[in-house]
């Protein structure tokens, strides 16, 4: 079948030690991320999503390509709200994310927490809390444990251009650097922290400059370039795994949607949005590169696109009509013991 033909002898060598199958797998995660988010938008408009909806449109590549540099089932990452793709790479199922957004009883947190705020440490992801920066010390503690136990494992944590202004970010990065724990920090420069632009958020040009203040080696890469993000992360992960401590990678990208779906982005220059959509969509760029380099064929990409749609259709159908959790289930699990908080007396009258 032509669509599965090997690259011609003239095709450029596959980059960064990746195989052709891996390049296609990365494409699949990118397409799955965008398709899942588009489905979530539809569900949001039907009021099936209970809370807010957060998009990673235009920055899917930095999530997927950085996570792809980890060893699945071994390393642990902590995503932010716009790192859905990184969770899919580590093995999170789209149905889990759909259930989380719709607050279903069968969701990983049984309706207690929102969207991507869930975890599976066996698969290798630890969901964030809303207090930006807090996951840096927590992931430093996870990486510290790897080091104390002599395990060749690595932690990876995402932080945004806004989150890097918090105290916990600074405390956590400094502690991690001093303790020389195997931690990789992906610093996302996506232009907007809610509505706040970089010039009101920090006084350096590049986020990488901040890392140098803690003695943490840092690089800045094009966050919309799969190979650049993957190569930089892979190098940092390998150095961290060999005991060379903390590394920071700044990924320059652009948040093309509002903070959440309700945000009309009136503060964003319209031509800027249009430029990023037309000239620097990271998935389009990657697809073009795959085709131009003859690492993939049009047919192959179309088949992946169709399979992603089918997968998300099936996942949605399987959970959209599931029930929400029973109210009284809210009382359980505050502590290991006692098993549940007491119900108030007037609820039994």
């Amino acid at each position, binding site marked *: 079948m032509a669509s599965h033909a090997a690259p011609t002898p003239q095709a450029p060598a596959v980059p960064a030690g990746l195989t052709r199958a891996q390049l296609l797998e990365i494409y699949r995660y990118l397409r799955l991320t965008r398709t899942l988010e588009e489905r979530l938008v539809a569900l949001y408009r039907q009021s099936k999503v209970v809370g807010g909806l957060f998009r990673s449109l235009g920055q899917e590549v930095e999530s997927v390509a950085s996570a792809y540099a980890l060893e699945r089932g071994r390393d642990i990452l902590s995503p932010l709200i716009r790192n859905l793709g990184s969770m899919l790479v580590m093995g999170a199922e789209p149905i889990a994310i759909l259930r989380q957004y719709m607050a279903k009883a069968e969701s990983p*947190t049984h309706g*207690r*927490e929102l969207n991507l*705020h*869930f*975890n599976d*440490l066996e698969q290798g992801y*630890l*969901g964030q*809390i*809303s*207090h930006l920066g*807090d996951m*840096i*010390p*927590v*992931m*430093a*503690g*996870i*990486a*510290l*444990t*790897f080091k*104390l136990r002599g395990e060749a494992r690595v932690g990876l944590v995402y932080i945004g251009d806004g989150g890097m202004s918090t*105290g*916990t970010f600074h*405390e*956590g990065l*400094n*502690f991690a650097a*001093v*303790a020389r724990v195997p931690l990789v920090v992906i610093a996302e420069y996506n232009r907007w922290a809610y509505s706040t632009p970089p010039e009101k958020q920090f006084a350096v040009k590049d986020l990488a400059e901040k890392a140098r203040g803690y003695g943490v080696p840092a690089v800045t890469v094009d966050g919309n370039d799969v190979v650049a993000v993957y190569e930089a992360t892979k190098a940092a992960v390998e150095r961290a795994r060999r005991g060379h401590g903390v590394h920071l990678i700044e990924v320059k990208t652009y948040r093309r949607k509002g903070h959440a779906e309700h945000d009309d982005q009136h503060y964003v220059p319209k031509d800027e949005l249009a430029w990023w959509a037309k000239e620097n969509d990271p998935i389009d760029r990657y697809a073009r590169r795959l085709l131009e380099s003859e690492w993939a064929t049009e047919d192959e990409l179309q088949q992946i696109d169709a399979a992603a749609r089918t997968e998300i259709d099936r996942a949605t159908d399987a959970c959209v009509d599931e029930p929400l959790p029973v109210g009284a289930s809210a009382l359980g*699990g*505050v*502590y*290991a*013991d*006692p098993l549940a*908080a007491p119900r108030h*007396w007037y609820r039994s009258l």
Partner: protein
Amino acid sequence: MADVTYLEALRQGLWEEMERDPRVFILGEDVGLYGGAFKVTDGFVKRFGEARVIDTPISEAAIVGAAAGAAHMGMRPVAEMQFIDFISCAYDMLTNYVATARYRAGLATPIVVRGPCGGYVRGGPFHSQSPEAAFFHTPGLKIVYPATARDAKGLIKAAIRDDDPVIYLEHKWLYRRIKEPLPDGEDLVTPIGEARVAREGKDLSIVTYGATVWKSLEAADQLAQEDGLAVEVLDLRTLLPMDDAAIMRTVEKTNKVLIVHEDTRTGGVAGEIAARINEQAFAWLDGPIMRVTAHDVPLPYAPTLEDFVLPQTEDIVKAARWLAAY
């Protein structure tokens, strides 16, 4: 059995848990070679090594956050706050991250956050605080507060073995002031959530914890000698979860209750205790539930000021006399 101070008892408890369980490690400021500001971890780094006694930067949020991450991975970290006053720097990490982890995400976070608290030591506003009320309001945390050497040891062991996050408050005024014989070679564990009757009585109950257990016992002695009153003193030992049954037992026995704590009054733990007695034992009361607490001001430095602000034995005597006569 040798006499053991409150501080030495705490130290023994930590040491024995480190010996017993390789998952236990300590992190905090100056805890290693220096042995901690109050020498609680003196000698630990020599015995257990730098990997298990970790000196950290001055970063309370990072200390607690890193402890939480390690706990998720199966470790049993004990984080020291050099003075408990600085636990407020980790308030976000404790209340938002740590306390919610089991509930929101099914994540076990068995950490202990311990540190010297309390006044009567001329420490001024930032080395004398009683932080319990700030955390008492947070589901998911446990708070223990030993008043005796035996419980200093028994509660640190219980806290380390507990599967949930525990704030362990150790009163620095008691560190070297209190001592009692403790049996060697016995695994002393004080169950979390169980109060202790520190003195039996029938006329009036004092419900208290921490350093004011000793002030209340002094007051009870004086009231017995001067007034012939038999005052019962209940040492709560654990604030969260609170031992409601023990509180109601003493209320039902004496029918009058005075709540004493060193912390300030408004929003303090005493208000919650009073509300619980009102809800659960109203019919047993022969008088109003009264409080003896610190005045609602930051804790000042000068001895005259500190003594005025904090509850003293004489305050407890006067309040108890008033209530007994009600």
